C-alpha cells in the first residue's frame, strides 16, 4: 500500500478512562473527542421507543444524554467501560460499548473514495492492560471489519509509548497519571515492559480528600457531588514544596493563602477561611500520601490507597512518586539508568496544578515537586518535562506510529507490536 494511502487513512483511537480520542491522520493537530461511555436504554421506555428507529442495544456518542432517564437508572445503564484503564475479561457490556464507540468513530470518517480499502487503525491502551484486552480488542476490530470493511490492518500500542513518540524522545521515563492510577513506564525505543511500575493512586484520590475536607468544613451536601468536588479541587489545590513549611507559612500569612470558591450558577460560596492551608494537602496527597497528617483522614474512614493486583500488574498504594520512578528505573540496565533520569516526561491531567504568583516557592509545579522527591532519594541530575498537550499526545503518538511502522512488520505477541491483518 502506498505512502499516499497511509497519509490519508491512518486512524488513531485512544481509549482513555473518561474520554475517547479518535480520528484519521488528515485531521491535523487535534483529534475528535467523545466520552468513553455507553448507555443501555430500557427498551420498554417511551423515550427509547420514540428515539430509536433502529432499536439500539447500546447508545454512544453525543446521543447519550437524550436517552438518559432517571438518576436511579444511571448506575446500571450508563457504562464507562474503562476502570483505571482496564476492562474485565467477561464484562460483556463494557466490551459492547467499546465496539460501538469504535464503530461510530470509524464511520464518522469513512470516506466516499472508491479506492478506500479500510483504515490503518492504531489503538492505544494503558500500559497495564493485560493481554486478554489486546485479544478482545482485535476480535472487535475483526467483527467491525467483517460488518463494514472499515479496518484494513490494526495494531495496539501502550499509551506511554505514544506519549514518548509525540514528544520526540526515544529514551525516557513516561509518568502518566490519570483519574484512577499512575503508570511509570521506562522507554528505550521500546517500552521496557518488565520495568513498568503502577500506582493505585490518581486524581480521583485527591478528589476523595477534597470531599473529606468539604465535609469537615460543613459542606456535606457538596461533598457528595463528584463534579463539584473535582471543580473545587482543580481551582484551589496546590502542591507544597514542603508540606510542613507550607502549613507554617499559611499560619503566618493567612491572607495570602486564604481562598473562597463560588459555585458557578449558584449563590453558594465555599469559604475556606482560616482553614485555607488545606489547599496544600491536595497536591501533597497525590505525590506523597505518607505525611502523618493524612492518617487522621484515614482513621476517620477515608479509604487509604491500597496495594492491589490487577492482571499481572501489582499496583502500589502508598509509595511516593519519587520512589516509584526510582523502582521503575532500577529495573532497567544500569548503563541506561542515567539516560532515563535525564528525560522524565509527565503526562496526564493529574500533573496540572496552579501555582499562584504570590505563593510561588511555597507552592510549586509538578516538575519541581517531583525533582525534590527524587532528590530526597539521592537522585540528582534529573530533567523533568511536562507534556505540552497531555490530552492529545497519545493520539498524536499513535498517528506517527501508524504512519511510520511498515505494513510488513507483522503483529508479534511477544513484543506486542506490529500490524495485524484483519482479512
Amino acid at each position: 500500500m502506498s505512502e499516499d494511502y497511509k497519509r490519508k487513512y491512518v486512524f488513531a483511537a485512544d481509549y482513555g478512562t473518561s474520554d475517547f480520542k479518535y480520528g484519521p491522520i488528515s485531521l491535523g493537530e487535534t483529534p475528535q473527542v467523545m466520552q468513553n461511555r455507553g448507555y443501555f436504554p430500557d427498551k420498554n421506555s417511551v423515550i427509547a421507543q420514540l428515539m430509536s428507529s433502529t432499536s439500539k442495544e447500546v447508545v454512544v456518542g453525543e446521543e447519550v444524554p437524550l436517552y438518559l432517564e432517571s438518576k436511579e437508572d444511571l448506575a446500571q445503564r450508563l457504562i464507562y467501560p474503562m476502570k483505571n484503564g482496564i476492562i474485565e475479561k467477561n464484562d460483556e457490556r463494557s466490551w459492547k460499548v467499546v465496539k460501538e464507540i469504535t464503530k461510530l468513530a470509524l464511520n464518522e470518517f469513512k470516506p466516499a473514495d472508491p479506492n478506500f480499502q479500510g483504515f490503518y487503525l492504531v489503538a492505544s491502551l494503558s500500559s497495564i492492560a493485560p493481554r486478554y484486552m489486546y485479544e478482545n480488542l482485535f476480535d472487535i476490530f475483526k467483527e467491525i471489519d467483517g460488518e463494514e470493511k472499515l479496518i484494513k490492518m490494526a495494531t495496539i500500542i501502550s499509551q506511554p509509548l505514544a506519549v514518548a513518540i509525540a514528544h520526540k524522545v526515544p529514551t525516557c521515563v513516561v509518568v502518566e497519571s490519570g483519574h484512577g492510577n499512575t503508570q511509570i513506564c521506562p522507554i528505550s525505543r521500546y517500552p521496557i515492559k518488565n520495568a513498568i511500575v503502577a500506582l493505585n493512586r490518581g486524581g480521583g484520590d485527591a478528589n476523595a480528600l477534597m470531599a473529606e475536607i468539604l465535609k469537615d468544613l460543613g459542606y456535606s451536601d457538596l461533598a457528595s457531588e463528584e463534579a463539584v468536588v473535582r471543580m473545587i479541587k482543580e481551582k484551589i489545590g496546590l502542591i507544597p514544596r514542603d508540606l510542613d513549611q507550607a502549613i507554617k507559612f499559611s499560619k503566618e500569612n493567612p491572607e495570602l493563602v486564604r481562598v473562597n470558591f463560588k459555585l458557578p450558577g449558584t449563590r453558594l460560596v465555599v469559604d475556606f477561611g482560616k482553614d485555607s492551608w488545606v489547599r496544600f494537602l491536595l497536591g501533597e496527597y497525590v505525590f506523597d500520601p505518607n505525611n502523618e497528617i493524612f492518617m487522621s483522614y484515614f482513621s476517620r474512614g477515608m479509604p487509604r490507597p491500597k496495594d492491589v493486583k490487577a492482571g499481572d500488574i501489582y499496583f502500589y498504594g502508598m509509595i511516593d512518586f519519587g520512589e516509584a520512578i526510582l523502582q521503575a528505573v532500577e529495573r532497567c540496565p544500569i548503563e541506561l539508568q542515567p539516560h532515563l533520569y535525564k528525560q522524565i516526561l509527565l503526562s496526564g491531567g493529574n500533573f496540572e496544578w496552579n501555582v499562584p504568583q504570590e505563593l510561588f516557592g511555597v507552592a510549586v509545579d509538578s516538575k519541581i515537586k517531583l525533582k525534590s522527591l527524587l532528590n530526597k532519594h539521592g537522585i540528582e541530575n534529573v530533567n523533568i518535562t511536562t507534556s505540552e498537550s497531555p490530552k492529545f499526545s497519545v493520539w498524536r503518538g499513535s498517528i506517527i506510529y501508524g504512519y511510520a511502522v511498515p505494513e510488513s512488520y507483522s503483529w508479534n505477541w511477544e513484543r506486542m507490536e506490529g500490524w495485524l491483518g484483519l482479512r
Partner: protein
Amino acid sequence: MELGEDGGMARVEVKEETIYKKIRNSLISNNFKEQRDRSYGYSVFSDGKIRVVVKVVSLADLLDDFGTKENILNFIFEIFSLLVDESYDGIILVCPNSLGEWIGSKIDLIQGYNKKLYIIAYDRNHEVNVEVEAALSLFKDRIKEWRTKKELKKQEVGTKIKESTEVVPKVYEQKKNDELKATITELNLRIRNLEEKYNYIVSKLEQISYGVPKIVPAAQEFSKVEKEEEVEAVPKTKQDEKSSSSLPSFFENNPWVEILSSRGKEK
C-alpha cells in the same frame, strides 16, 4: 478542621461550630437567607415562607453561663419565648447531649410545641457523631413539616375569612389542589424534556434535509448539461474534507519516524 500537634496549629474549631456551619450551609443551599446573625444569641433564617431560628449552646456556655440559677432561668425563658413567638416556625437547638435530653423530655409534655423544636445534641466525645449526622440529615424533613404546617395554617386563616359554608373542608380541598399542582408541574417537566428531545430530532432531520434541496436542483442542472465532462458524483464526507497531503506538525524533526520505520528490519 483540626490539625495535630505535629502540624503546629492549635485546635481551631469546636464541634458545635461545625454543626452550626453544616446547618447554615444546608439552609442556604435550600434557598434560605440569613436574616439575623448570631450576635443576637441566635440566628434567624428565612426562605420567604417560613422563618427558622438556629440557637447554639456550646459546652463552654453550659459550664460557664449555666453555673447560676439565674442563667439557667434566662436560657429556659429564651427558649420558651422563641417557642411561643408565632413569627418563628421552627427552632433548631444545637446543644450538648445532657442539656438536649433534658429539654427534649420536658418539651415532649407541651403539646403543640414539641414539633416546633428540633434538638441536635452532640456528645462531648468528638468521635461519637453518628447521632449528630443522623439528626443533621433528618432536619430537612422537619423543615418540610414546618413548611406544610405553615401552609395549612395560612389556608385555615383564609377559610375563616371567607366563612365558607362548603361541606368539604377547604384545607382538605387545598391539599388536593396542591397535589394536583405538583402532578401538573411534574408533567410539565416531562413534556419539556420530551420537547427538547423532539427539537433535537427535528434539528437532525433539518440538517439532513438541508442538503436535499441543493442536491435535487444540482442533479436537474446536471442532467441538462451535455456529458462533456464525465464527473463521478461522490458525496463528500468528513474524511474527504479533512484530507490533506501535508503531514501534521508533530511529525517534524521527530526521531521516532526513523526508528519506527525500521521496525521489523532490525535484529
